[in-house]
């Protein structure tokens, strides 16, 4: 059996005003990146508490990206 390569699933908490817009612009520019990122839009990265990050890991995230 061929072992599947490890493809991390990452939760991204992205600020609506900057990082989320940047992720949109990456799309407009057709930049390609691995499909493992799941973005949750927030109004400010300051709204992300350690609880959210821990919850993401608990739920099975391999990584957490806070962009703001």
């Amino acid at each position, binding site marked *: 059996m061929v072992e599947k390569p490890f493809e991390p*699933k990452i*939760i991204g908490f992205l600020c*609506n005003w900057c990082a*989320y*817009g940047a*992720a*949109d*612009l*990456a*799309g*407009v*520019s*057709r*930049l*390609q*990146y691995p*499909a493992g*990122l*799941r*973005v*949750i*839009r*927030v*109004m*400010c990265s*300051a*709204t*992300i*508490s350690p*609880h*959210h990050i821990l*919850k*993401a890991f608990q*739920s*099975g*995230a391999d990584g957490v990206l806070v962009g703001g």
Partner: protein
Amino acid sequence: MDGEAGDFRVKVLTRPRYVDMARCIACGTCAEKCPKKVKDEYNAGLSTRKAAYVRYAQAVPLKYAIDPDNCIYFRKGKCRACEKFCPSQAVDFEQREQTRVIRTGSIILAPGSGVFDPGKLGSYGYGQLPNVVTSLEFERILSATGPFQGHLVRPSDRKTPQSIAWLQCVGSRDPHRAGNAYCSSVCCMYAIKEAVVAKEHAGGDLDTAIFYIDLRTHGKDFERFYETAGEKHGVRFIRNRVETVSPVAGKDDLSVAYVNKEGRRVEEEFHMVVLSVGLETRPETLKLAEHLGIELTEGGFCMTDSFHPVRSSRKGIYVCGSFQGPKDIPQSVIEAGAAASAATEGLVSVRHSRTKRPLQPLEINVRGEAPRIGVFVCHCGTNIGGVINVPQVAAYARTLPGVTYVEENLFTCSQDTQEKMRDVIKHESLNRIVVAACTPRTHEGLFQETLIRAGLNKYLLEMANIRNQDSWVHGNNPEAATEKAKDLVRMAVAKAGLITPLSEPEVAVNPKALVLGGGLAGMVAAKSLSAHGYEVVLVERKGLLGGQARSLFTTWQGEDIRRSLDALIQSVEADPRVEVHLSTEICRVEGFVGNFESVLKSGDREITVGHGIAVIATGAQEYKPDEYLYGNDPRVMTQLELDRRFIDKDPSLSGLRSAAFIQCVGSREPKRPYCSRVCCTHTMSAALHLKELNPDMNIYVLYRDIRTYGERESLYRKARGKGVSFIRYTWGGNPQVLAQEDGLEVRVFDPILDRPLSFGVDLLVLATAVVPYRDEGPAKLFKVPVNENGFLVEAHAKLAPSEFATDGLFLCGMAHYPKPVDESIAQALAAVSRGLTLLSKDRIRISGVTSRVIPERCSGCLGCVQVCPYGAIAPHQETGAAVVNEALCKGCGACAAACPSEAIVLMGFDHREIYAQIHAAFAG
């Protein structure tokens, strides 16, 4: 154009774009399929675009156009590939030029400027030597959307340069070769920025050198940037005007000849040379000006006077931006606001007469209802559908809990789909909507509008971004993209099941303004607010109006300040809508945007005034030095003290045989590391006034950099022409002043003669710094920030220079930064224009995305109060629990994260919703 102020008729020509804006979805297929490549003017010709194109990726509105000069169909009658492949039938070759007539009361000119073409000066090799580029071309090279994707490479061989030289004043301060005598105002700062950014791109090894005459970093916080560029980033600054650039034989490198510090001519090789080209009014703008019959300055900019800085010579026509004179972004934005305010003062009687208001149906109450979620999955032509298996995603959505309706659309955003969506919401009794399509940043508003029209609260919408953040970035992996789309829809549905309608509280606006500061800026703001029909309370801590302008003699354009100031004071005092409070200070402020209540104190008397907005124009003052014998010798005085003598027509001035000015006294030094902006120009005016009184007077100006920016440069040229001597000194090598019986002795080291100089003068004028009032009363009361130099901090240095981050509060004048009369007035008008956006409404809506405290969970630790950047949270007087003032809350959610017991929720983004999204991300 014909007509007159109050009733112009303007004929406007619209060129066809051959793309129907209503249909274009900005997918880029037309550009992809278009076979015709042309030079991309946005990237300064360094790369190519297609004949079907969008000028730049961030264009607003993001709609494509077809350039008929290059389109093969227009040139040869065949092709129409764009039309064939456009998924939304947006291409329309039948579009024609359209003219229409607009009737308007005022006109604002904002045509901007072009840049100087350095090809006119053969000696720089521009156009022949590929590695000689203009600053604008270099700007594109550095940009991620530029011709080299943001990699710093030079055009000739696409290699990373190891050394770059910037040559300043190309096409500026050069009346003979370039024909432009003025300073372009912006080039010093952008050259420093480019050098620093280039170093950041290239790493530490890049050598950058800026060749300049005077370094002009006179903007707010610019001086510090200049210092950091030299000290931290190692940008070399070489004071020398370079006239020629020559090729290096056998290489693509360039040789720059200059005179070094020791006075020897040296040649240095660089891999690239950037020409810092100046601003210049475009020929078509000159033609427009002629057509409109407005007067221009010597430099070809729109003529204005210092007391009406955005008013052209023709009544009813206003101006802003670099057509008014060369200037940077903050000043352009300030003038834009000023022009908006000035141009509408005369149109108050017809305000809102052409405004149309949409009708809104009553909102359906969905509280307590089980979620009935409707999911709309968009193909976006082939943008999503070409990558993601949309039918599969839609089928999957049907299996999700709470989903009662699912539909696929070719374009969910199209007008007909919106109408259909409205009907579906009603027929299916949907109470939550998920749109899986593009990004909420561009389309949330549109879909919210449809919800409102269907009677749903607009916050009952959630979007799954399956285009920008999925199909577009995973085009090479359709399977993974489809899986991701399912995840994103599942996450959106999970959140949608929890969202609740949010209310947007409405608050009434008290149509009255408080203006703090009765100086020039404050008075202009008060007069303009009154002209717009609003009542004003003008508060001045001193016993009389006028502020610093009382001590000023003339503007740089030679206008008598006192006369205009007196007229302004009289009109303020006579204005029935302006209530003036002299010798009064503000001692307490409560409330928020639209509803402030302030307590004014005058002696023992306290009065309370209500106001919807406040303009802070508390000004600044002249630094009283303790150096250069100031205060010990009557022959030493400040600029304002000299102005006072001019105003009083002091007869002793014409008897003086000699005078010296020392610049930067108290400015650009460790204690005050900023440039005071006004002093160089002030000294030029004063030196010329002295020369008028006595043409034989010997005048010396001891300076570090002469910063007569823009067309103020003409004064510097005039002063040199009249024989004023300019002697440069450096920080650390400051001049010395000794009192002698027959005069003052000034000693200074002259770097050009390379020896110490000593000369006697009858009068010494100190060009001292502009310093803010250190009492931070108003700033503290209104909770607005103050920078380390004591100036107030605006909401955004470039884009919001006349308002604070706190709603309803505005600023202008020297409390913001040192500035001359014309710029203070422009900013006062700009503050008014920003304020009018609130005052002109009876009520304002506050966003529903605000924080809310669940009091029974709150322990009263007040951690949230500490982290709130807007001062929106305070403890309840009795219970001690935190209470959020919705009108002050900006919805950042910092409090929600800081709260140890999750007692605070950010409405629309609460913990349960975020946890549901996290959980759903892995529930596939």
